């Protein structure tokens, strides 16, 4: 929830910003619900979980449980962590299906290693980048968060964190700490050209994917060949319309086919395509 002018992180820590009034506004605002649900959907898509398999997920900065409700609707089981008691009270009122923890993500996630099949976070991680007490160091808190996140995730699973970075330096700070903690991955930017719709998703992989490919079977002829065949043969570029008479029906059909291949919108071919019109046309 970053305002265009003053960012909420500059005003103080999140547990004070998300007090009871803010929490009430948050959970009743239909636009907020819509945006958060869409982002949760996109993050779940980027998580690339195996199909139709309910998983045990972690929701960082779950707040009022908007993203968590989406996870429950998709059939997953989740645990939410948030620092604001008011937001969690709203979540309890909404009777969501996940277990809630009131805690500071910058101080680690108190679970056994290899607990969660994945992690999502919607609009939460940017709060770690601002130090609210003199004793806090954002880089150290970020590292502590990422290191414990790496530990609690199952090997080969992903974490998708949607955030609102203030600047590219902040983004770099976050990604360096994530890399130090052992994650690999990168940033996915949705709608990079639109100032309003632009969304940043930090996709982190904790190790190589343990997805085992299908074994070979005896009916290999029925399957289409999955691999591309690379040869050194030179394929000369032939313009397919070269031999034809210009403006003939065959020429027109070939031109339309070329346009279709380019992805343009082309009228369907009918019996009238390329027919000779009356002279006065």
């Amino acid at each position, binding site marked *: 929830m970053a305002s265009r002018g003053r960012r909420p992180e500059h005003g103080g820590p999140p547990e004070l910003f998300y007090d009871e009034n803010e929490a009430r506004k948050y959970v009743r605002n239909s636009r907020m619900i819509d945006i958060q649900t869409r982002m949760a959907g996109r993050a779940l898509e980027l998580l690339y979980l195996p199909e139709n398999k309910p998983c045990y997920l972690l929701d960082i900065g779950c707040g009022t449980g908007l993203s968590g409700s989406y996870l429950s609707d998709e059939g997953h089981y989740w645990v939410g962590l948030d620092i604001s008691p008011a937001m969690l009270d709203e979540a309890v009122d909404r009777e969501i299906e996940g277990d809630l923890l*009131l805690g500071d993500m910058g101080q680690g996630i108190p679970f056994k290693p290899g607990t969660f099949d994945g992690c999502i976070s919607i609009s939460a991680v940017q709060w770690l980048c601002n130090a609210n007490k003199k004793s806090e160091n954002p880089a150290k808190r970020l590292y502590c968060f990422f290191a414990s996140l790496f530990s609690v995730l199952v090997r080969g699973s992903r974490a998708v964190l949607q955030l609102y970075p203030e600047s590219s330096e902040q983004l770099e700070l976050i990604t360096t700490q994530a890399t130090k903690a052992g994650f690999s991955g990168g940033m996915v930017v949705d709608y990079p050209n639109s100032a309003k719709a632009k969304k940043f998703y930090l996709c982190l992989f904790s190790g190589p994917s343990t997805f085992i490919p299908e074994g070979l079977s005896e009916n290999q002829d029925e399957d289409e060949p999955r691999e591309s065949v690379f040869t050194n043969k030179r394929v000369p570029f032939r313009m397919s319309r070269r031999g034809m008479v210009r403006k003939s029906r065959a020429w027109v059909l070939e031109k339309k086919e070329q346009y279709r291949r380019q992805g343009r919108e082309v009228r369907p071919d009918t019996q009238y395509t390329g027919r000779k019109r009356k002279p006065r046309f």
Partner: protein
Amino acid sequence: MRLLTHNFLKCNEENCTGGYPLQIKLDDTSSENVKILEQDFNKEFVKNVLSKVDYDVLYNTAKQFGISLLFSYTSQHLEDEGFLNSIHHALFKIHIMEGSLICPQCHVSFPIKDGTLIYIYIYIYIYIYIYF
């Protein structure tokens, strides 16, 4: 706070090793400290999660709530609907509403209020509490 989550929780205090499993202490002063809520039974998930949980811890914790599970199970039990249902009941339906979790090593206590576990260092909690 379901027992499923409790099975995976561990104490993250500095210099605390072996802070697992956290002991559950129910709050006897409040009337409704444990709730049994319905949840749909998903056989696949129960089987998958059974391989991840620490079964001994689950057995002891369920005993504390008056549920007796099988002491150990074999792969045959994984197909038995009754066994899976009892596991589902223990893991998903029991909700601890009021109480606290105590680390066996450093004896720090984490309260559970209204089903939410308050895992935050005490000085931060007091600081938030003053503002509310």
